[in-house]
Structures are given as C-alpha cells and as structure tokens.
C-alpha cells in the first residue's frame, strides 16, 4: 500500500484509510463492547431482581449489614473520578499533556481510594463471618440479626456484583496507568487521543454500574 502509507501519520494503523476512520472505528468498537458489558452485568441484575421478588424480607434485613456511609462515600469518589477522566480527555484534545497527566493521576488516586474502602468493607464482613457460600460462618450476634437461613443468597449476589465490579475498577486502574505512561512519552495530542477517549468511555460505564449497585444493595428500605 505504498500509495497510502506515504500519507499515513505514524499513529494510523496500516489498514485504516485515515486518522478519522481509525478514531471512529475505535469509538464504535468501544460502544459495542460497553453494550456487551451492560448485558454481562444485566445477568447479575436479573438474578438480583428474581431473588428480591422471592425473598423481599431477606433483602431488607440483609442490607442492614452493609455500611451505607462508606458505600455513599465510594459513590461520591467514583462520580468525582468520572469528572476527572472527562477533564483528562479535554486536556488531551487541547494538547495539554501536563493537564492530561495530572487528571489521570487524580483519577487513578480516586479509583484506589474506592478499592481501599471496598477492601475495608469486605474485611469487616469476613471478620464477622459474612462470607460467600460455603465460607458462610457468621458470629452469633450476626446470626441473631440475620435469622433468615437464606441470607447467604443475598451475600452471594452481593459478593458477585461488587466483586465483578471491583475487577472492572482494577482493570480501569491498569489502563489509566498505561495511559499515564504513554502521555509522559508525549503520545497523545489533539490529533490522536483515541485511547484516552475510549478508556474514558469505559470508566464512565464502571461508574454508572456502581451508581446502580449502591442503591440496589445498600439502600433497601
């Protein structure tokens, strides 16, 4: 393809005609992937809905064991990180490498705060013996509060949903560290910021899913 590669900028892969086509493709591909993610979590939401419809008292009772305050803090942390990732894209579009790096760094930091809080929540529950499935071994006080013998179903769903979501946060942290390094090498500018843009899309989805998880799991009245 001599007649094309001559006009190709370095960041455009050989099989694309131009930068626009590459950007559009990457963006469409990411949207398709996000639809797929929604369906993936959709399965868990379905399981949640079915069991909540079957055992409503159990869900109200079990949700009391979750810490609304820290769940709420985490929600704010993630919403904040969505804002900073949007600002990172804005910086890339305006050729501000420094701004891009700072915003990415804040996003990574917020994501880490989220994971640390999540860790302490898990840790506290495991300490009380509220563990998934066969590790279910609650202390007598907890057992008193959670009289329903099927309580472990709620926590099975809780651990699956938050666990899979947590994995997504970890993947997001990894992606943003990679972006941060590439930004440091000056890979991104107003002509080419596709990876920043599509990672941003991914991060918004991770955030959005948490915004559903928080009220569904923590705020059952």
């Amino acid at each position, binding site marked *: *393809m001599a*007649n*094309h590669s001559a006009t190709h900028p370095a960041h455009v*892969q*050989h*099989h*694309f*005609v*131009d930068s*626009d*086509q590459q950007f*559009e*493709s990457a963006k*469409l*591909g990411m949207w*398709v*992937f996000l*639809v*797929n*993610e929604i*369906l*993936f*979590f*959709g*399965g*868990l939401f*379905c*399981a949640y809905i*079915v*069991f909540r419809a079957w*055992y409503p008292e159990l869900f109200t009772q079990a949700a009391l064991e979750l810490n609304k305050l820290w769940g709420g803090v985490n929600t704010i942390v993630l919403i904040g990180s969505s804002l900073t990732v949007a600002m990172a894209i804005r910086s890339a579009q305006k050729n501000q490498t420094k701004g891009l790096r700072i915003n990415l760094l804040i996003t990574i930091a917020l994501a880490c705060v989220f994971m640390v809080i999540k860790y302490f929540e898990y840790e506290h529950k495991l300490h009380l013996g509220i563990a*998934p*499935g*066969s*590790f279910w071994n609650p202390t007598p006080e907890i057992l008193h509060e959670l009289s329903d*013998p*099927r309580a*472990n*179903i709620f926590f*099975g*769903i809780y*651990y*699956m949903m938050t666990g*899979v979501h947590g994995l997504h946060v970890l993947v997001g942290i990894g992606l943003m560290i990679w972006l941060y390094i590439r930004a440091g090498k000056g890979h991104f500018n107003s002509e080419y910021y596709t990876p920043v843009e599509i990672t941003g899309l991914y991060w918004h989805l991770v955030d959005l899913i948490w915004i559903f998880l928080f009220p569904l799991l923590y705020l059952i009245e």
Partner: protein
Amino acid sequence: MAVAETKNLTTLQVKRFKPSDNPTNTYLTDEKGLWAWMTTVDHKKIGLMYLGAVAFFFALAGFLALALRTELWTPAKTFIEADTYNQLFTLHGAMMVFFVLVPSIPAALGNFVLPMQLGAKDVAFPRLNLASFYIYVFGAIFTFISLANNGFDTGWTFYTPYSSDANSAGVIWVTLGVFILGFSSILTGTNFITTIHKLRAPGITWGRLPLNIWALYATSIIQVLATPVLAITILLLSMENIMDIGIFDPALGGDPVLYQHFFWFYSHPAVYIMIVPGFGIISEVITTFSKKHIFGYWAIALSSLAIAFIGFLVWGHHMFTSGQSSVATTVFSFLTFLVGIPTGIKILNWVATLYKGSIDMKTPMLYVFVFLFLFTIGGFTGITLGALSVDIHLHDTYYVVAHFHYVMMGGTLMALLAGLHYWWPKMTGKMYNETLGRISAVLIFIGFNTTFLPQFVMGAQGMPRRYYNYIDQFTIFHQTSTIGSYILGVAFLIILYNLMKSLINGEKAPANPWNSRGLEWQATSPPDFHNFDHTPVIIHGPYDYHQPMEEFQLGLAVSHNGHGDHHEVTTDETEKA
C-alpha cells in the same frame, strides 16, 4: 435530504484491472515460519488458523460421535461403561457447540472473507482478532485440563443441581473454559460490527453489501448481546461449584429453573450464531453457480436481522416441560412460530433464485442442494417441536436429537462445507478434485439421512435422549443410525483427503475460477497481504450477473475527494492490465 444527496454525488473516474492469475507475492508467501504465523495480525491467516482448530475439534468430536453410535449398536453395554458414555456424549455436545459450530463460519471463513468482501485491508481491530484466537485456544486448554480432572458428565447444558454437585473439579474447569471461550466470540462479533460499519470501500452502500456480510452482521449482533449473559451464567455456575453461593442450588434456596432461563437466554440465540452465517454462504454460492441475481435481496438481508432479534425472545421453548410459568410457556410458543417465518422466506427465495438461472452443479452447489433439503426438514420439525402439546410428547427424545442435527449439521455444517469448497481456491490458490468433491457430497447426503431419519421415528415412539441402555424395540433404529454414521465418517475422510491432496499437488487456481461477481474474487488467488493492491471502488451490487464481467474487475478511483464517504461512481474507462 435531497440537497445532501446532490452534494454527495461526485462523479469519479475509475480505472479497471483484471487480477493476475499468477501472483508473485501472496499472503502465504509474504512472511514465513511458525513465529510469523503465531504473531500474525492478518485476518486471512487468523481465519486459516481458526479453520485448522475447528477442523481439529470437529474430527475429535466426530470421532466421539462414532464411538457413541458404536456403543448404541446393542441395547445394553457394547464396549464402554455408562459413566464413560455419559462423559463422551457431554464432550461431543460441548465441543461441537462451543469449539466447532459457534466459531466455524464467522471466525474461520468469515474472518477470511469479510474484509475482502468489504474491500478492506483487514478487520478493524487486527490485534483483537489474534487475541480472540488465543482466547479460544486457552479455553480449549481448560477443557482438556477438565478431562484430566475426572472430566464432566453433565450434558453440554450443565443443568443444575446435577452440575453443581460437590465433587466436580472437572465441571469447574470446563465451565471456566467455556467462560473464557465466550470472550473470543465477543471479540469477533465486536470486530465484525465495527468493520462492517466503518471499513467499507467506496461504493459499497448497505444495499450493495453481499448477503454474506448481512448474515455475519446479524450474527455479530447476537454474539455481542447474548454471549455476555452466558459468561455471567457460567461464572455463577462456577462459583456455585467452588463455594456454593446458592443461586441455582435448590438445597440452598436457589432455583434450577432460573439457571435454565439464564442458560437458554444465551444458548437459543447461539443456535442462530451457528446457523445465520450459514445462510450468508448459501446466498453467495447459489448466485455464483446459477449465474443469477439473488431473488429478494432485501427479504433475505432483513430476515437475518429479524431472526437475530426475535431469536432473543424464544429461549423458553426449551423449557415447556420444566415448570416455568404458563404465561411464559404460551408466549414463548407463539414467538417460536414467528421466528420460523423469516427462515421459511429465505428457503423459498433461494429456490426462486434458481428459476431461469444457469445452474452448474459443482461441489459447492451440490452442498447447497443438500443444505436446502436437510435444512427444510430441520425447519419443519422445528415447527412440530414449537407446538405446545406435541412438544410435551417429543421433548428430550431422539426426535429433538434428530431435529437439531438436521439444523446444525444439515444446516450449518453443509453451509460450511459449501463455503469451504467455494472459497478453497481463494484461500489456498489450489483447485481440488471435482469428482471426489461431488462423491463426498452425495455420500454425506446418504449417510446423514441414514443416521438421522430413523431418529425421528424412534424419538416420536418415545426413545429418550442421553440413554446408554435402551429397550429392545428401538434396536433396529439404532443400528440403522449407527451404519449411517459410519458412512458419514467415510465421507468426511474423503473430503479431508481431497482437500489435503489439492494442497500438495492440486492444480493452480485462477483468480476467479467460478466467474463470480463477488468482490473477494477480484483479488488474486491466494490474495496479496493487503487483499487488493489499491482500495477498490464499487459500482455494482454483488449479484449483478446481468452486467458484463469487466465492470466487476477491481476499480481504482482516479480522483476522489477524501475517504470513507460513499459516492455515486460512474465508470468511463475499462482497461485490462
């Protein structure tokens, strides 16, 4: 709207070239060595690697099928134990579904053909394409680990609570394997959707897309929407096995019927992942070998999409006897009939395409005829099974076994063989022996019907599926079926021999041996690494057999403003290189 159209109507000058019959450099000679193959991002090589892997698993699972049929020669034990038999039929089903049928047409043939039919140099995300292949291999390795860990005997459907029993390390491994495999399918689907939307060559409007592309497009939509649900279901099932989280286990407050809903929400659309790309191949082959414009282009294109969408709403027809709610049962039965209609339309359109054609019964066309006959039976028996009262009697009997073999093997596999023989010269640059090709098609037809027609009868008589022993009255049916399966085995060996022989000393294939109007045939055989040596400009639909051949040869736009936009194009110059 009218203003916009006039604005886009740019007149282009197009030069036309006939592809060389003796290419000097092809994708096969471009880079050599194992490492180059293993790290390639070329969609054609990845397609071939998928083809090899699919053929390997097909041979393995097919061999298991012969072992199963041999065991069923006598009502009691013939040569293997019940537990072995149960593991073998599970493995046969799981491998055929997850390792053969799902990836066969899209990931093997589709990968090879799709960018070429779009006039693109590759799929949108070549590295993801390679990743999808390795994920597939990785998933397969998990299955083999499972076999080393006591294996699994749950049936390919993994119904709980049987599959969530305590001592089942094998089930954990295989479910994780299927979980991983799902991502390979998702990546292929994502890649294809993006490629079809964004990488079409100038002149390929939605109305000029080959029907194979429409079919792959519909398939990719299903892959992307359904596979993640399988992934989460299988993940939950693994968690059930690893630590009893209780969602599907009745002993812990969960529900096995919920598992079935989850499972079939993927696995019914998955049936369309397997068959819809086959429809695409049939449209391509039938037009080429009858030298005729397809009858009802839009009906065929849109019915693929209709099947894709309605296909999501019929999963409950696998569960008429399961204890799901009565309302659900009624609705699912009704929708099942609706999904049958677009399929019927396609068959009639293909038959109508033959009318006044110029029909050449070459091997691929012979497979299309076999397809049309077998798949029609598969479709009709599907109607029988969709009828509520009749399904109560036939559910989980050999009638169902025969039905899905007619659809999956008589449908998907025949389409795959048609496509394989059709594109073989393009993929390898070699011609196979035509006589042997026809013999194998006829043998498959005979063997297939001998194997599966008796299964309709014994199923309707009451023979349940997944039975190691059976009562004496079914012996004659089982023995006929077993003989048929051996004929099938021989036929597949002939195909293998014929194709391998063509690789070694086959005649050299010209660029367009079938005189097809398809864009992929306007490249050399085998194609260049970049498929075409310039971005082609398309001025006719893929089935315009009433137009002279010269106009289908590769067009190079002499002047056009920018890329990606699709212009009206006129030719004014035809030139042979």
